[in-house]
């Protein structure tokens, strides 16, 4: 049965897929690691799993798209899921969250679900950060968890498509899984590609010959939620979904109003630092209905304890407030600092 859920507990968000259309060319090549290979191993959780959420809802354009794993054979993928269900979590209920942009997998999954009582299909808005665990749990199961809290404690397991194929290969078929797909994109690269890379390969080797000759910065798992990598000898593990290389635009560009395409997707802040003008952009875009400017003002007045009174723990650190702020304030940084002093207490 199909449940279309729109804007349930989710008034803000931002359609990044529209704002930054990225196209991946179809080249999928295998990059072997020279050193020690690492393998994927699935550890069965200790808790009793009651709900399994399959996340097929990438909301960032630089994330691995669905077609790489599904290969337009959604039924086959769901058959794999059924095997996993029989083997590992027979009593759990399955929820498939698919982005609304992928009409083909939705149709196939609907077709499949009409004969399968154990699963439900959810067509979700492809708005960032819909695929965040907190948002998924809220929209699908109506369960409230705080950011950073493990959903496993409530008996809920969230899996992405690639992990499910890997569990199937490793657990059901008994093959060793030592490689994974990674999306490579960004303005610092010659081409946007999807690569199949062995675990344990250093990032250096992956990016070799692919980067443009300019100052670039490398980000793992996207520039919004991910982290910056300065040490390129870091090895790729299973948690790496995508690598993004962005141009470091640290010089002034003349006539920026007519060059928005050239400036987009660079690390430039695209504006000058100003004082907060209370424009309400941050609380309009906030997916969890917080008011980030309140934290900023509390912080600048030196009243971190006050910031914590305004539902600070609900923040999922998606970074949209800093992203949208026309005054270019570091709102996410402020929120994180307000949170840190909480832990120290």
């Amino acid at each position, binding site marked *: 049965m199909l449940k279309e859920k729109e804007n349930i507990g989710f008034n803000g968000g931002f359609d990044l897929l529209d704002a930054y259309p990225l196209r991946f060319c179809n080249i999928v090549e295998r990059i072997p690691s020279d050193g020690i290979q690492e393998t994927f191993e699935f550890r069965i959780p200790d808790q009793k799993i009651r709900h399994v959420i399959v996340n097929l809802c990438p909301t960032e354009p630089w994330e691995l798209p669905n077609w790489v794993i599904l290969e337009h054979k959604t039924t086959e993928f769901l058959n794999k899921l059924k095997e996993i269900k029989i083997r590992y979590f027979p009593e759990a209920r399955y929820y498939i969250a698919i982005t609304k942009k992928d009409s083909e997998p939705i149709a196939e999954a609907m077709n499949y679900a009409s004969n399968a009582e154990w699963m439900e299909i959810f067509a979700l808005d492809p708005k960032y950060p819909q695929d965040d665990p907190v948002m998924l749990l809220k929209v699908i199961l109506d369960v409230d968890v705080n950011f950073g809290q493990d959903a496993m404690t409530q008996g809920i397991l969230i899996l992405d498509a690639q992990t499910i194929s890997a569990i199937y290969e490793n657990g059901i078929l008994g093959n060793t899984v030592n490689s994974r797909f990674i999306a490579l994109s960004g303005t610092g690269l010659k081409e946007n590609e999807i690569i199949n890379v062995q675990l344990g390969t250093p990032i250096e080797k992956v990016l070799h010959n692919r980067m443009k000759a300019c100052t670039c910065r490398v980000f793992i798992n996207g520039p919004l939620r991910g982290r910056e990598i300065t040490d390129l000898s870091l090895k790729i593990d299973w948690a790496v979904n995508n690598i993004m290389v962005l141009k470091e635009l640290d010089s002034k560009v003349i006539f920026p109003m007519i060059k928005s395409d050239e400036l987009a997707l*660079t690390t430039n802040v695209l504006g*000058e630092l100003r004082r907060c*003008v209370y424009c309400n952009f941050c609380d309009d875009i906030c997916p969890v209905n917080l008011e980030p400017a309140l934290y900023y003002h509390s912080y600048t007045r030196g009243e971190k304890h006050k910031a914590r009174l305004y539902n600070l723990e609900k923040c999922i650190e998606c970074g949209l407030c800093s992203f949208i702020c*026309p005054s270019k304030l570091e709102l996410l940084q402020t929120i994180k600092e307000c949170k840190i002093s909480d832990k120290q207490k």
Partner: protein
Amino acid sequence: MKKLLKPIEPIIDKGLDTLESFIHTHRKVNFLFGALFGAFDGLLRSSKETAQSQPFIRNNYDVKRFMGAVLVALVFGWVFPAIYFYGWQCVISKLLVSFIIGVFVVDVLWAIIAREDHISEGGFVSCLLVPAILPPQSPLWLVGLGAALAIIFRNVLGGVGNNLVNPALFSRLFLTICFPSFLVTGYQIPFVDMPDLHAFRYGLDAITHATPLTAFKTNGEVTSYLSLLIGTSSGSLGETCRLALILAGLWLIRLKVVNWRIPASYLGSVIFLSIFFSVIMGKSVAPPLFQLLSGGLILGAFFMATDPITTTYSQVAKWIFGAGCGFVTVLIRDFTSLPEGVMYSILLMNLLAIPIQSLMVKIRYRL
């Protein structure tokens, strides 16, 4: 456009670079012209700061665009209609005086004295609003004084981001107290016809002392709604062509520069309360549609009450803010000897915005 600018780009870029390094190496020059150069440079070139903390990409939308959108909306909303109705000589001279005194003299001097590193874009908006809320025949020195007062007052309170009340309205209040005679006279009858050269320059040489609201106050005369809507009735320079103001305001709402809650609640409460009082008191108070379309209500509701800094931050409180503005406006118009109350209502609610905001925060987070 891109191709046209391509050949001159490197020349301007290099020129600005040399100028910048010159200014930064000479301390005295930097002291005097640093802020002015910064503002000029900021208009032509993007900043060179890069994101050092998460998130590492930022949206292409800054305060300059925010203010630029308001400026464009105001130019289409009142400058062009006013040029048609009152002639370009009247409008352009006021704008020049307002900008030169407000932004290029007072704000630059303030930046030098207070050692600010940049000139705020908000000054342009205030200086574009000051002539709009003064009568068409007001002397130029009055416009200049108004612009200077607006900018000084805003800067004294700490600049854009800290102003307590709308600077343009505050300066008008100041002028109303100091020079009341100039603000009740000097209303011109708008020109309505195919403009010839003379009319395009001077408009119609006919002075009236009656705006539709004062006419209603003195003899109960209701001006036709159509003439109020398209601007063929007298009034302050920028408030008469309500049709253009509404269209410009809706454009700003679409861009999300203007928060739709404030015009909706302000205009809605004016209509509601004026219907209420009309039903109770009959013909002695102004009819609802006349109240909506007369005076500075449309200009105030779309462009002044919505000034984001002086309203509340909480979205729910914005409804209270707008409704309060409407309440005070209708009260002043209907029950006092003053013909117009938009200025007072917005200024009063600007001050009340702070307690409303803190109250809303307390209610929302159960403090």
